């Protein structure tokens, strides 16, 4: 028994020593990626049970010198917290680790080999922050408090990267900006200044595809919430086409935003596509919009309310009502085939669907809005209670409206 224990002790000692020497070696050789593995909380080494013991920490420090020692120290402490299943302290140590990393990055002029380390550690910091936020260990914590702190910490890194404008293109830390921006936008919602920083960067087109895709996804989604549907379509379409073809989970997520945006712009998705990605909620929606059936549209929205709210697109879907009105009024026009359409007929069309809370004034208001947005060409005569439409192309194709 005694020999067994001492054997394990000896083995962990060797492993520890080996790990420290490894860290020192890759540090001296400036090998960014291996170092990022050694400082990652998701790497194999964290499972060595003894790695975070008090003695291990002291021992480790003997082999390392400043400024790396602080960084490793916090990393080891984070592992201790992880083994104790204490996410809050784990977050705090990781945050300190990222802060010492920021200092190291600041000191390193004309070199950027540490960027992989920064990418890994910042990603893990963000994941931890989200985890702490969700578990809510302490009652005194304000909602969003940890996320805010995390954002501050990442912004520290971001500033170091963004200010590195004297180094040559190969050595500049500005290559790290986009990953950080992606971390910051994902959950942390700090968009405008960050997007500006990227858009004005000379390396905009040269970032890696994976980085660009993540970035464009967020920018596209933001454009959608800002009601800039053309830009949203552009970004999200790029993301959908370039995203890895086997990551169907991501593709589905992209489509959740892209489909309603496309519909607003007048492009209806194919049923097969919706089926493939299990997005049939949109199928029913599309049918109602196409047919101009407001009553059904309301029903579908009610039926899938939690899906639409959960995905954050309920308000976008609400806008589809405008398209549905346009389609319905166009149908009335096609049936009557006249250029002076009585408002009463438009109202009757709505009433036939079972919409009973709309009156003549409101129909006029809806039509006025459609004319204002260029979706109907014509004007309303209030005295004659008629919608007078243009002889040519009174209902322009939605995709052609600027």
């Amino acid at each position: 028994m005694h020999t067994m224990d001492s054997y394990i002790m000896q083995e962990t000692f060797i492993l520890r020593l080996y790990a420290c020497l490894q860290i020192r070696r890759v540090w001296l050789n400036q090998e960014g990626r291996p170092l990022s593995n050694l400082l990652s909380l998701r790497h194999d080494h964290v499972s060595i049970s003894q790695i975070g013991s008090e003695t291990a920490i002291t021992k480790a420090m003997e082999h390392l010198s400043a400024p790396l020692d602080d960084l490793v120290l916090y990393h080891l402490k984070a592992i201790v917290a992880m083994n104790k299943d204490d996410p809050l302290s784990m977050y705090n140590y990781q945050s300190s680790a990222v802060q010492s990393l920021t200092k190291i990055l600041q000191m390193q002029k004309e070199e950027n080999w540490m960027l992989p380390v920064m990418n890994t550690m910042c990603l893990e910091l963000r994941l931890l922050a989200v985890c702490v936020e969700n578990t809510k260990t302490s009652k005194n914590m304000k909602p969003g408090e940890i996320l805010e702190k995390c954002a501050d910490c990442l912004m520290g890194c971001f500033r170091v990267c963004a200010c590195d404008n004297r180094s040559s293109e190969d050595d500049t830390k500005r290559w790290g900006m986009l990953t950080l921006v992606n971390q910051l936008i994902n959950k942390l919602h700090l968009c405008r200044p960050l997007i500006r920083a990227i858009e004005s960067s000379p390396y905009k087109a040269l970032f890696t595809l994976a980085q660009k895709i993540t970035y464009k996804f967020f920018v596209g989604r933001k454009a959608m919430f800002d009601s800039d549907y053309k830009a949203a379509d552009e970004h999200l379409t790029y993301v959908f086409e370039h995203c890895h073809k086997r990551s169907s989970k991501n593709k589905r997520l992209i489509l959740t935003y892209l489909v309603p945006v496309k519909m607003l712009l007048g492009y209806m998705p194919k049923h097969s596509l919706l089926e493939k990605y299990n997005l049939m909620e949109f199928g029913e929606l599309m049918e109602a919009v196409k047919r101009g059936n407001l009553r059904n549209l309301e029903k579908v929205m009610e039926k899938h309310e939690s899906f639409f709210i959960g995905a954050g697109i309920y308000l976008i879907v609400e806008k589809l009502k405008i398209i549905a009105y346009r389609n319905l009024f166009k149908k009335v026009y096609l049936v009557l085939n006249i250029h002076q359409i009585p408002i009463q007929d438009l109202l009757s069309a709505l009433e036939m669907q079972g919409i009973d809370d709309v009156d003549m004034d409101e129909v006029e208001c809806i039509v006025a809005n459609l004319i204002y947005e260029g979706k109907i060409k014509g004007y309303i005569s209030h005295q004659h209670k008629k919608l007078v439409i243009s002889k040519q192309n009174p209902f322009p194709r939605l995709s052609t409206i600027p």
Partner: protein
Amino acid sequence: MTTFSQGTCLLMCPEKERWIKFFFEKFMTTHTYSREKEGLLHKFEIDENTKGAKLPKADPAKTIKCFSRSAAGSDMTDMKLLRPASLFIIATRTDVDWIIIYEFIFDRLRSVRQDAAIQRIDALMYIQLLEPIVRFLVYSAQRFEKCAVLTEWIWRNDCRLCERNISEFNTIINGQHLAECLTRLLVLYDESEDEGNSLELDRDMERLILNDNRAEMEALYILLYMGNMEALTRALRLPHDLRISPNVQLSIKISFAWYLKNYVRVCSLIPQLPPLLICAAMTGIQKLRRTALKIMSSGYNSKVFTFPGLKLQQLLLYKEIDKIKADCELLGLVFTNQNILFQKANFKDEIQLTYPEMYYTHQCLHSFLPQILLESV
């Protein structure tokens, strides 16, 4: 931080008990005393018997701490004179100009808030403190003298405000404070919702009261930010019991209508709201009318056909037809024989707001006061 005894008697509302303790502790502070000496007492605070004197005495039952900025050396934590209830009784006085009343109350409420922040009072109490303040600020937004509202209009439409007396910009400051208080309040609601369910009966009773007012406050928020995506998203994610409350439901309906620029529906639903919520909804009417008139200038664009003024008055909740005339002239539209000639090309895009107009008459507004301000204190 002071801890409060939890009331054990169910008949005596525990909330009230805490209020009483909180408000009436040490109300005659050194602060009041020095203001008395310096002759800085407001006329609402003076002891009637010493009114004519050179340095009138303070009436201890009336004094309320006034606002002063926190500064190094001044002890801010010692003051516990928070009494919104007595403040609002002053508001119901008819013998004094509203602006004077408003400025007095506004200043004192600011001080109340400052103290609350410094003393870090507990969330539930903070909520109960902010709710009447929010009501007061919403109400005041409607109650302003014409001149004040007009100045805001000038300010918004044309930025030559430098030479104007700052006190005229009540509307703007009022709006800022309202936004501050309301967002603080919403955060507090969210936080108290996150707290684990306490089994104590008192706590549950308080929560019941809380939810009652919260529905009103959430509705206010939705209406003040009518059509705003963030406010609507929040509304959609409200807990079920709040979302189905009639006021919240109607407010959501109005906000959604405005989200799709359905001005007819918005204006037909607003009068169905209770008075305070109408005050909130009407804060945006100048912008709403401007947008509606712009849309109508496209929809009814014609060189010949006009739109009846009386109809427009009904659609956009105008009180006086003269206001329509003024707004039309302001926006470049022709108003002839009580009719409007909408022409897209003539619409003056640069004008951001129509003229202000009060929804209620002064007398009517005044009669709402007790109901709005005192009922729930």
